[in-house]
């Protein structure tokens, strides 16, 4: 696969690993990545194994599934229970446990829940089923938000009245500020999410180097990208925000994609699992598109959401503890029967630790 295979090349990977060893020169570094796809690929390509032991990679709150609180899942499940509602969702959400159940379990009970690959496919379901209401579960960061915005714009343009979105989108930079402000996270720098950055550019991260003196590199997702980004982080003599993923990311980002987000969504406070509410870190649908907001469109009655007190997902998501520190890890919480979201998502930190050791 072009532009993929070349960045997985064994020789280049080995050369980069050596260069990192030399550049680090025995000094210890801790870098955090904040993108679920980075967490996944670090395990998939055994990156930690290739790095010298003085370079530590920790996972932060980058998995949109993991950071989605129970309340969102509970609402989605309640909507699934309404007559003539079809829930359309990315596969990632199916096994995430809410306070009482999961979408997968509800589907097994006979609820209308469909896995789709693109929100435009969900819009098609709405077009083809005019007597049903299609509710799309909008999760994901700034990479996905523009696509969902576009589906709402298309629904308005084509007068599709039976399509709506339950908005659970979150944004990156503000949560990183909250993470560092709190002081519990000790890292030397960040591997920044390559595809979120393709949309928002490098500007929103500058505060990380100016305010917090953290080194930052916007990284791609192949082994060569990740290792090259680590090398760049080590080589920075002053904290800065650099781009490793130059074949995709430009400093200004993608204005057209950003404009789609701005047109449909507004920033709002958002609850992050394990971190509480973070100001202006989520998206909500603007009043001009209220007809497409599933949150306001349907009545579901009072839902009492609760979180499992023993679940350490929150601390795991902040990179403060490793999964094995959680009492539930490997015992009552496994990929087959997950308690917390970190165990469900393929790149949830706990699932990755469990699978790949």
């Amino acid at each position, binding site marked *: 696969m072009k532009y993929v295979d070349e960045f*997985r090349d*064994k020789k280049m990977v080995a050369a980069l690993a050596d260069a990192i060893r030399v550049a680090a020169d025995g000094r210890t570094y801790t870098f955090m990545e904040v993108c679920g796809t980075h967490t996944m690929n670090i395990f998939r390509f*055994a990156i930690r194994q290739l790095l010298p032991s003085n370079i530590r990679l920790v996972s932060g709150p980058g998995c949109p599934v993991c950071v989605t609180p129970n309340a969102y899942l509970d609402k989605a499940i309640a909507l699934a229970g309404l007559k003539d509602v079809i829930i359309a969702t990315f*596969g990632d959400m199916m096994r995430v446990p809410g306070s009482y159940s999961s979408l997968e379990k509800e589907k097994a009970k006979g609820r209308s829940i469909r896995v789709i690959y693109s929100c435009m*496919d969900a819009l098609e379901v709405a077009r083809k089923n005019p007597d049903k209401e299609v509710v799309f579960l909008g999760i994901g960061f700034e990479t996905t938000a523009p696509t969902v915005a576009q589906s709402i714009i298309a629904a308005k343009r084509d007068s599709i009245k039976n399509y709506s979105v339950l908005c659970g989108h979150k944004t990156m930079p503000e949560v990183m500020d909250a993470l560092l402000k709190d002081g519990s996270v000790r890292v030397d720098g960040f591997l920044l999410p390559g595809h979120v950055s393709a949309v928002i550019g490098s500007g929103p991260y500058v505060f990380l180097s100016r305010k917090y003196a953290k080194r930052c590199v916007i990284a791609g997702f192949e082994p060569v990208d990740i290792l090259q980004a680590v090398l760049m982080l080590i080589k920075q003599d002053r904290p800065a925000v650099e781009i490793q993923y130059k074949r995709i990311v430009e400093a200004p980002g993608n204005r057209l994609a950003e404009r789609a987000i701005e047109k449909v969504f507004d920033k709002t406070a958002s609850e992050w699992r394990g971190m509480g509410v973070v100001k202006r870190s989520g998206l909500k649908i603007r009043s001009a598109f209220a007809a497409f907001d599933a949150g306001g469109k349907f009545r579901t009655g009072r839902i009492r959401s609760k979180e499992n007190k023993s679940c350490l997902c929150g601390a795991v998501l902040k990179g403060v503890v490793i999964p094995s520190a959680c009492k539930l890890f490997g015992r009552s919480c496994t990929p087959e029967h997950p308690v917390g979201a970190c165990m469900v998502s393929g790149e949830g930190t706990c699932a990755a630790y469990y699978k790949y050791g």
Partner: protein
Amino acid sequence: MHELIDELFIGSLGGKTLKEKKDSAVIRLGGESYAFTTDSYVVSPLFFPGGDIGRLAVSGTVNDLAVCGAKPLYISLGLVMEEGLPKKTLEKIVVSIGAASKEAGVEIVTGDTKVVERGACDKIFINTSGIGKIVYKGLEIGRIKHGDVVMVSGPIGDHAISVLSKREGLGFASNIKSDAVPLNGLISRIVKASAGIRFMRDPTRGGLGTTLNEIVRDGSFGIAIDEEAVPVRGTVRSACELLGYDPLYLACEGRVIVIAAREDAGRIVRAMKKDSLGRGSAVIGCITKEHKGRVYLRTKSGGKRIIDMLAGEQLPRIC
């Protein structure tokens, strides 16, 4: 599912034969050894590029017999149909069953049909049971030795991707056809090529990764796989990268995993390649003394990681 099988079924029902948990049970009748197996087929959609549920139902059971060293002979056919299933659909499936049986050289000797009310089953469920005569003895996980090689008869994941390409909501087009096919012809070539075959299994549900984990589970050995050596079609790879699937866990319906003595590997692969169903055969790994009970993958980029048992079905993801 594995836990359920162990605890409930084997726990409550298990005699010596059931406890062996082979793809086919080996039983003695009148002084001869026979293989006996059963499987149920619930695939959706019913028709997919390269096959259908009928073809699957015959191939799956024939293959379960063949990998145990048996010559497949007789098949039983049980159909549970949802009320309202179009006659044309049923006809197509039955014709396909007939064609696959002819290909495999097996005879359908008995059957049963049931109709259930709408919603009680998803269009049609098929169960097939099969009997074959053991012609190659001694295929056992217990015979696997350190240093043995692991081979596969062709590219993995074709079946899973062909079925996925027909599922609504995933929207991609490809030329991938299911590999569902009776393998008894190919397997008879394999067993003729060497007396050093330890074990065979077809990687169906859960794919290569799950099947290797099943083999290694109670074992005194580990398995090391070389990612570069595992054959995967370019289209299947692209589908996996697009949807977030791991090809190692994709179902195949016309492939066989062969574990054999190292010195026979070349001969076995050559024999497989002579067969039209084995052209893509390759040595993909070996049996190790280290990491007993585990399957390891040497990735294309040089790192090494564990391949675990798959938890549940893979779902397309955006993360």
